[in-house]
């Protein structure tokens, strides 16, 4: 099966007037890590909840591993860590895992072993028998991830998984997500932390006002808003000769002068080569040449600022 998740014109309208999702068409490859980005209120959580039938779709269709998403059996191999989850305070960490594991159809010694393994994976073993009422936010997130991983689901929906987790914990969670994906699980990551998504995900979609504005790899999305990799930054020593040379480049380059020397930005490959040749001929010391690229955050902001219809597309 090529796609773990597929949606076709999936829509959700609340009270007949609030359009939370507008005809979403998504395809998430099996065993990939898919990131869903969007500003607050874009409809990210609604999309995940609709895929899991927590929210009923108004129109359209969706499939999880080839099954209609409304069929309870489709959720048999799905794990879910919701945003802002609340576990029953009367349960211990192990009790939470046991309860949700049983609801997922697991039982007996197999479940007990799985609980121990998953709690160890999220480094929560020593807190397993403590009531969740005493857990910190970060511990609750890790416990949430443990319960979502029970039964080794084929698809794992993670809604803001690093919310409330400290930097070290975030780093560990990222590594954990990578290792889960490496084992063949499809990860659907919902996050507003762009750097996190950029680092982990193979493919992303940007959701804005209920519509998918862009879908594709990080590179293809940044490229689509102007980050084609040709923008180069050359830094070299400050000297009268260098200043004179820069006058010749003025029409095609942007020049900054700081403590490190001159920094010249060029956006054509021929310009870069010409500058380097010129500098070397005049024995000007070059400190560095680096490719300047638009990162995901820049692309995201650029896309969000644009009207939805003008940018909505899927990149290869």
């Amino acid at each position: 099966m090529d796609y773990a998740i597929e949606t076709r014109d999936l829509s959700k309208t609340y009270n007949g007037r609030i359009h939370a999702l507008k005809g979403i068409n998504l395809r998430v490859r099996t065993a990939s890590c898919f990131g869903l980005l969007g500003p607050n209120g874009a409809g990210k959580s609604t999309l995940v909840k609709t895929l899991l039938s927590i929210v009923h779709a108004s129109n359209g269709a969706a499939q999880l591993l080839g099954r209609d998403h409304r069929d309870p059996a489709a959720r048999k191999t799905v794990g879910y860590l919701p945003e802002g989850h609340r576990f029953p305070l009367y349960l211990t960490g192990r009790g939470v895992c046991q309860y949700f594991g049983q609801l997922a159809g697991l039982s007996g010694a197999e479940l007990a072993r799985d609980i121990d393994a998953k709690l160890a994976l999220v480094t929560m073993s020593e807190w397993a028998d403590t009531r969740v009422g005493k857990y910190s936010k970060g511990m609750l997130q890790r416990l949430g991830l443990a319960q979502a991983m029970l039964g080794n689901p084929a698809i794992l929906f993670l809604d803001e998984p690093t919310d409330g987790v400290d930097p070290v914990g975030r780093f560990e969670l990222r590594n954990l997500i990578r290792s889960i994906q490496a084992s063949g699980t499809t990860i659907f990551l919902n996050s507003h932390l762009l750097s996190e998504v950029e680092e982990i995900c193979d493919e992303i979609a940007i959701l804005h006002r209920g519509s998918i504005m862009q879908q594709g790899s990080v590179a293809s999305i940044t490229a689509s808003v102007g980050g084609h990799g040709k923008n180069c930054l050359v830094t070299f020593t400050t000297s009268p000769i260098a200043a004179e040379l820069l006058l010749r480049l003025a029409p095609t380059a942007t020049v900054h002068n700081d403590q490190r020397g001159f920094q010249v930005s060029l956006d054509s490959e021929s310009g870069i080569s010409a500058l380097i040749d010129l500098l070397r001929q005049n024995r000007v010391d070059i400190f560095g040449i680096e490719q300047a690229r638009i990162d995901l955050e820049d692309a995201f902001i650029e896309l969000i600022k644009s009207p939805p219809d003008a940018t909505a597309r899927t990149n290869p």
Partner: protein
Amino acid sequence: MIRAVIGDTWRQSKQQVVFIVMLVVMLLALVAGIALPRPVVTADGEKHFGTILSDKPFDYFAQQWTNEYAKTLLKGNEASRNAVRRDVFTDKTLTPAERNARIQVLQREQRIARDEAVSKATDVPEYRRGVEYYIHAVVGGMFKFTMLLFIAACAGYFPAMLGNGAVDIVLSKPLSRLQIYSGKYLGGVVLYTAAIAAFCVLLFVGIGMRTGIYHVRILYSIPLLAFTAMLLYAILALIGTASRSATMALVTGYVFYVVVDSLINALMNFQPMLQQMGWESVASVVSVLRHVLPNFGMLNDMALASLLNMPVFELAPFAVALAWLFGCLGLGYWIFSRRDY
């Protein structure tokens, strides 16, 4: 998987003070109920019902048995008696003589019921009557009181499950919403039925050992008592699902169990008087209410009357309660299945 939902209801209950109080009250009622009675043999060698508090016989329960029996017999033909009563006071074509004759019919029925009760009483030894009514009082008292605690304990089951952030993971599991709703409902029902059943079985054995009378009819009351609790819990489930508020469910539960029930019973008692005063329309409304709203008092009375082997089973309150049970469960599930969380 449903077992997990039921199990969670038990874990949730264990954390509630009011549920623990309910179990403690049941336990105390059980211990006191078993410890208190004992047979007292008088100088003439006759065995009487007595208590550990006194060496003298305590015949009050045996007398109450007869009174309760007469009352139950009258209740059995209450509908036809009400019809006659209505005719007596509203039928303008009746002559005074005819009216008097009908009043005499009513009075005669009252006498017959009393006589039948007394005659029945003579078939049952006084000692046994005392023990049976004692059981009736213990089970009835325990049930009425623990139902009040049961409402407080169960009011939060559904709202807690449906709270923001709590319901998401449950709904993401491979369970249908019908399984989730019915599992949560069955969880509460199983808990209370198990508690009631354990109470009745232990009381049956305990009182049997203390008095020598193993009154099997204690066990007969379990289904009707459980049914009453099921109905009340179905109402709590509906309100809890619709409002997602434990307070709202709690208040509604008490309104139904205490206020509405008492009001209907009071109005029913006043019904003959209303007819007598010519307030036919008000009397009709009361009559309709009785067949529209669930009457926990009557269900409770039927359950307790079965303890005394009384020939009383009114279909109307049972049918109304059954309709409410399925109506509330159906509506509650419908709301749960359609709502977005």
